[in-house]
Structures are given as structure tokens and as C-alpha cells.
């Protein structure tokens, strides 16, 4: 069996973002393996630990994404493939390029993050599934392999969740609660440096372009009431919400 994770490198949520020439400038930001992709990597490693076989991590992104691939290798993934492309590519175009690599790898299943922490896209997993002609299970919180061609999974819906049986190969996207990712160990980090990382240049035209990015922080009223007298504070707050904000 072969388990494959698709990952991206994104700015840490705590990093300060700045805008330069109408674009987000990441030069000062701490870049990390996307937290939701980290769950995907962890799950792929656990599946390999349980069922044997091979684990592979694939990224589509700029040169710097290699750091995130190394993190996944340090966590325990066997080898990496890096489709190198700078700049914004829409998820449909990404899926098309990734599908080619994944088809050749012929994994038992693919795991990727539920949402990207930079482009806020949730589309890559399902678009990839469509490109491969496979089913997709998004927002997965549990997965259990029943055989090489069948898995059971629990995943979130708009409201509530459901248990499904899925024909493999399939694409799964991660959700919080799936697992608690391991930290790379020092020996793991050393080993990762020697693991195979294959680079493939990619040139593709995006179907959507980003025209401009801005940071619009709403000016907040900051009207704070002292809660020493809870009853009068509560009345004042309800009055403000009713009469001033007119929201209740």
C-alpha cells in the first residue's frame, strides 16, 4: 500500500502580515507546514505504521515550500515530490498538475488539508479527486482501512457529521480532531536531509488571478462597561445593542 499527503507551506497564523504594492508580503512572516496539512501528514504516517507500505509527500508551490516538505520527511514520510511553481495558481489548475504526479504514484489514498491557511481555499482535495476520478471525503475526523480497496471514515458536514464507506483510491481532507501530530525528532530531522526529494518544474496558467490584496481592519467602537454591578452593566449592554447598534 502507498499513502500520499499533499501539503503546502503557509504563514503562521500568529505572524504579522503586511501589504506591499497591493500584495501580501510574506518576507517577514514565519512560514510553516500548514496545520491542516500537518494532520494529513500525521494520518498518512499512522496508516503506514499500521498497514505497512510506503509514504509519499507532494507539494505544489514555490522553492521555499521545500522546507515544509522537509518537515513532513522529518515527521516520518519516506520521500517527497516538489512541483515547483511561483505565484498564485487556482485550485483547479493545481489539481490538474498534481493529478498527473499522483496518477503515476498510484497511491492507496491521498490526504490533504481541509482548508489552506493562506488562500483560504477548501477546493484542492475535491478538485484533485475529480481530476483523478476518485471519491472525496472532506473534513475527515476518523479513517479506518477495511481493505486495500475500501475504507470507513467519519467526516463533518455543514451540520453534524456522517459515517461513510468509501471505495479506494480516494481523496480525504483533514479536520481538527483527526489526530495529534508528532513533532519531528532530531534524528528524524537529520534523516530527512538524506531522504529523496524530487523536484519537477511546473509552468501552468492560472484560471483565476488575484488583482489586489488589502488588509481592512474594521474600526471597532471599543465601548467597554465595568461589570462590577452585573445587572446594570447587562442592562446598559442590551440597551446599546438595541438602541445604538440595532442588532437585537
Amino acid at each position, binding site marked *: 500500500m502507498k499513502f500520499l499527503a499533499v501539503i503546502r507551506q503557509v504563514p503562521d497564523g500568529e505572524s504579522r502580515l503586511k501589504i506591499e504594492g497591493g500584495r501580501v508580503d510574506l518576507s517577514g512572516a514565519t512560514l510553516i507546514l500548514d496545520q491542516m496539512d500537518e494532520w494529513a501528514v500525521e494520518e498518512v504516517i499512522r496508516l503506514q505504521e499500521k498497514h505497512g507500505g510506503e509514504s509519499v509527500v507532494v507539494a505544489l508551490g514555490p522553492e521555499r515550500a521545500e522546507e515544509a516538505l522537509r518537515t513532513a520527511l522529518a515527521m516520518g514520510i519516506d520521500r517527497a515530490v516538489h512541483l515547483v511553481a511561483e505565484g498564485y495558481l487556482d485550485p483547479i489548475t493545481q489539481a490538474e498538475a498534481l493529478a498527473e504526479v499522483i496518477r503515476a504514484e498510484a497511491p492507496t489514498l491521498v490526504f490533504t488539508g481541509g482548508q489552506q491557511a*493562506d488562500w483560504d481555499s477548501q477546493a484542492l482535495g475535491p478538485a484533485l479527486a475529480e481530476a483523478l476520478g476518485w471519491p472525496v471525503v472532506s473534513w475527515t475526523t476518523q479513517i479506518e482501512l477495511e481493505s486495500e480497496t475500501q475504507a470507513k471514515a*467519519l467526516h463533518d458536514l455543514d451540520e453534524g457529521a456522517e*459515517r*461513510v464507506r468509501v471505495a479506494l483510491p*480516494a481523496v480525504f481532507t483533514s479536520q*481538527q480532531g483527526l489526530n495529534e501530530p508528532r513533532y519531528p525528532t532530531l534524528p528524524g530531522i537529520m534523516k530527512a536531509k538524506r531522504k529523496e526529494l524530487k523536484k519537477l518544474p511546473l509552468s501552468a496558467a492560472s484560471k483565476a*488571478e488575484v488583482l489586489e490584496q488589502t488588509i481592512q481592519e474594521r474600526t471597532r467602537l*471599543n465601548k467597554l462597561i465595568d461589570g462590577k454591578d452585573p445587572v446594570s452593566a*447587562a442592562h446598559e449592554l442590551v440597551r446599546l445593542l438595541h438602541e445604538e447598534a440595532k442588532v437585537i
Partner: protein
Amino acid sequence: MILVVLEHDGQRLRKSALEAIGRARQLEALGPLAGVVIGENTQAVAQEASQYLPTVYVAEVGGYTAEKWAEAAYAAVQKSGAQVVIASGGRQGRTWTARLAYRMKAGLLEDTLETRAEGNHIVATRYSFLNRVTERQRAALPVVLTAKPNTTPPAEPQGSGGVEVLNVALPTGVEVLERLSEQKKGVSLTEATIVVTGGRGLGSPEAFAKVEELASVLGAAVGATRAVVDAGWRPYSEQVGQTGKTVQPNAYIALAVSGAVQHQAGMNKSKYIVAVNKDAEAPIFKIADYGIVGDVHQVLPALIEAAKKLKD
């Protein structure tokens, strides 16, 4: 042709469907409108939909899977020749629309706040970087777009249309074994105009009952922070934040919520933010419009009483 995929509960169109129709009408320069109702118990819903749209397709495909929805929507696209597809941007909507966009080789504009036609392009505004950045994206037709809930006024009925049944070959691959519904009678979190969220500072699941009580008095949806969900007090489906739901209500009332960046990613675009926290330095107060610095155990019961009095 613009095709609107209409969310429903088997009886009526959801508010998000009326918002999607509203969004489609804003793009009318790109062609006439049609709708499609997908799922189970679609007939009555399709009748309702025909009061809003000149053509309504209906595909009775049973319970949800992304594969079935993409297949049915694609059948409606082929039948109508639509170059633009509009759907609501929930988790499910953003899953199957990605499949559909790939199949149509379309540009995908996700979770859009506003959209306008520009020649044979659509320009959309959306958030990125965990809701911290606002960006404009442009894609040439064909385009599949999802509309963020609560960003468009719901459409009013207009004219009357015909209903046409689509036959869809059902894809297999995913078999639903069990639905773990938290489909309570309450207000849907992503569609709610008021959200009342409780944080770990409440101290216990019992104390959280008061959050529900305030929500019920205000007709609001209940939200929870990740810490509360991790502690098992509330289900994941109520989680607001980076890995939970993103909400943008008129009023977001955060009770004993400190306001970590990951939580803010799910609510920082709310029209008014209201916070109750005993720590005046809590990050939530930096983005609050109104707040009470005080003990939630004392303030919350008083808020319930004050809200009840207002509603009487």
C-alpha cells in the same frame, strides 16, 4: 445562462438559497437565470423555487454526497448551457463545487463576498489568509462561484417559471452508513444573524447551558471555541474559528472567550463584536465594539434577564 444551485431542507429553500438567487440577479448581464434543486424531497422545493426563477431543474438523487451533487449540477449545466454556476459556500457547497469546476474546466471563486460581471469575466471579493486579508480575484467564464452566507440580501419572489426534471446517473464510491445529526431545531450557525459563543472561561458544560439560554432568547445560534470543543462540552459543528466555521453575523457575542488569532479567523468580520470577559487585557476586547469587563457567571444571568425584558 446563470445556474443557481439551491440549498433546501426537503421542505423549503434555505435562506442561503435565496441569497444565492440574489447574487445571481446581480450578474444578470451575463444571461438569464435558472435554478436547480438537488437532493431528496425536491418536488415541493422546486415549486417554491419556480416563484423566483424562470427555469428550475430538479434532480432527485437522495441524500448528499459530493459526487452526486457535482453530477447533478453538471447535468443541469449541460442542459442549460450555463457559463456561471452559483452555490452557497458551506462545507458541502465548497466541496462539490470544486468537483464541478474541475469538470467544467472553470475558474473557481470561493466563498465570495461580492461579485460583478466585467465583460466575460467575473470579479469577486473574498477573504484570504485566515480572514485577515481582503482580495479581489478575477476569472474568465466559465466560472463556478460560492457565495459566503449573509453577504447578499435574500431575493424576493419574481415571476413564475417552469420545472423540468433531470435524470442523473448516480455515481457510486461513497456510501453513507450513518448520519450523526446535530441538526437541532435551533438557528444554523453560518446563517444566523446573531451568534452567541461560549469559551473555556465558563468553567463547565453546565455553565454553557446559560449560553444556550441567551441564544434562545435572542433567536441566535450557539457557537463554541476550540478549547470548549476539545474539552468535549460542545460538538465540533458549533466551533467557530480557523478549523471550525466562519461566521459573519450582525452581532457576535463572545462570552468568556479570550480571542486567540485562530478564533478570530472565524468571526473577525462580524458587523458588531460584543465581549464579556473578566480579563480587561483579553485580545477579544481589542476587536470588540461593546463589552463588559466582568465575571461571566454574574453577567450572563443578568444579560439573559435584560434580554428577556427587551423581548417582552
